[in-house]
């Protein structure tokens, strides 16, 4: 089941046949370069967490409840818990390659080498999306291609299902309503919204997008419907298998 909810899918025709063969030839080790681009017009990504891991150690499964550590990432951008989960499972982990938030249109890249642990055949990548209550971008438990080459994946936005999407300013600690509004969010989001009527959904799913409004000093939402909405995909990941 999890396989069918892969957030990203192969984009380039040149590489598709290679990937099909690669999937059946899964090797145990890989030396990768990974880049991620924020494709949105007005959504910021909090520090990215990426890891090559055993496929049994997915960070989440669509349709199932989020872990407490996924919740902390999705509601406040705190990747420490998920990073510890991956490290405990012997994963190769990269934290915060962009050195802070990844702005709209910006890219960051990093290297991953799984040679030391042949069981780390799958790649995951997550970051919170701001301004949202508990939205995040993810590449979820994707089999790393074994054949050297360049592979492109488009990533979708998920809702962790842990917090009501009231769309007003608040805090990032798990269980604290509202969204945190650091620097660029503070300047682009509205104020004094009355809050969108909503409830935590209870399970991870594809995000239905923000509602927003066009009233920067009131209305139901502190999110700007012209600036902060998105349509999937929200990020593009390019993996070069060396």
């Amino acid at each position, binding site marked *: 089941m999890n396989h069918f909810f892969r957030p990203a899918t192969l984009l380039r*025709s040149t590489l598709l046949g290679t990937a099909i063969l690669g999937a059946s030839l899964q090797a145990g080790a890989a030396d990768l370069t990974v880049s991620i681009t924020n494709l*949105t*017009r007005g959504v910021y990504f909090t520090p990215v967490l990426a890891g090559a891991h055993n496929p049994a150690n997915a960070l989440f499964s669509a349709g199932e409840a989020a872990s407490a550590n996924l919740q902390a990432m999705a509601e406040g951008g705190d990747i420490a818990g998920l990073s510890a989960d991956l490290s405990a499972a012997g994963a190769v982990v990269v934290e915060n390659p962009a050195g802070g938030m990844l702005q709209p249109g910006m890219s960051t890249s990093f290297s991953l080498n799984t040679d030391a642990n042949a069981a780390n055949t799958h790649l995951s990548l997550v970051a919170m999306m701001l301004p949202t209550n508990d939205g995040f971008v993810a590449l979820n438990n994707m089999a790393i291609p074994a054949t050297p080459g360049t592979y492109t994946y488009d990533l979708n936005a998920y809702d962790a299902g842990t917090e009501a999407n009231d769309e007003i300013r608040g805090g990032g600690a798990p269980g604290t309503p509202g969204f945190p509004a650091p620097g660029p969010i503070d300047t682009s989001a509205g104020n004094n919204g009355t809050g969108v009527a909503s409830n935590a959904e209870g399970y991870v799913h594809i995000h239905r997008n923000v509602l927003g409004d066009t009233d920067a000093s009131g209305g139901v939402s502190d999110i700007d419907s012209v600036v902060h909405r998105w349509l999937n995909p929200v990020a593009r990941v390019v993996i070069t298998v060396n």
Partner: protein
Amino acid sequence: MTKSFRLNTLTRSLALISAAGLLAACNGSSHSDSSADTTDRMYQVAITNLTAGQPLSPVALVGHNSDYHAFTVGQASSVALEQLAEGGDNSALISEAGSHAGVYGTATASAPLAPGGTETLTLSVTAANSEDLKLTAVTMLVNTNDAITGLNGIDLSSLANGESLSMNTIGYDTGTEANSETAASIPGPAAGGEGFNADRDDIRDMVLMHSGVVTADGGLVDSALHEMHRWDNPITRMTITRIQ
């Protein structure tokens, strides 16, 4: 159900085609023989407008190598692309492509493509280096400020004669015009306003994913658009068939 989670992806049929192509190559077919040729090729591109209320401006097709880019995500749009994205006029983009050393051929539709409509264009590429042959297709969603959709350098090098591939396309915002959605700023039939304007007043002067239109029904009071002008990805389906 599973397919509904896929956006801008190659279809299963393409996967099968590609896999078949590889198998054929393994069996010593003409696949490897054709990889070094520089013969003329022809492609039919069938385009279906999947939206409810967004006519598409005349589609521009460019056959090219990896030196040509109609646009790059995260970078500023060219003026030629801006003219297409804001006014539906592809003449500058076609003209500039035609004089680009990395371009092997161009084609354009003669009329807009209505929602639900399908058209087929033919693209001839002259003496293409088949090891590095790519296809770009660009068209404007005319009831927007500056939304486009299309294919950005899709690789055709391994598409054998008679084979086809289908792709879904997603929407980009060229970042050249604010998404005001006002009647004065949208050239399509929903508004009848201005097309190209050289001012660049969007929140970021770069090509990014389009976030959709808010519309008057969605609370943007000055918008000339209504709920039927919204869309989700994919916006078109393009089937490319090599016929020579």
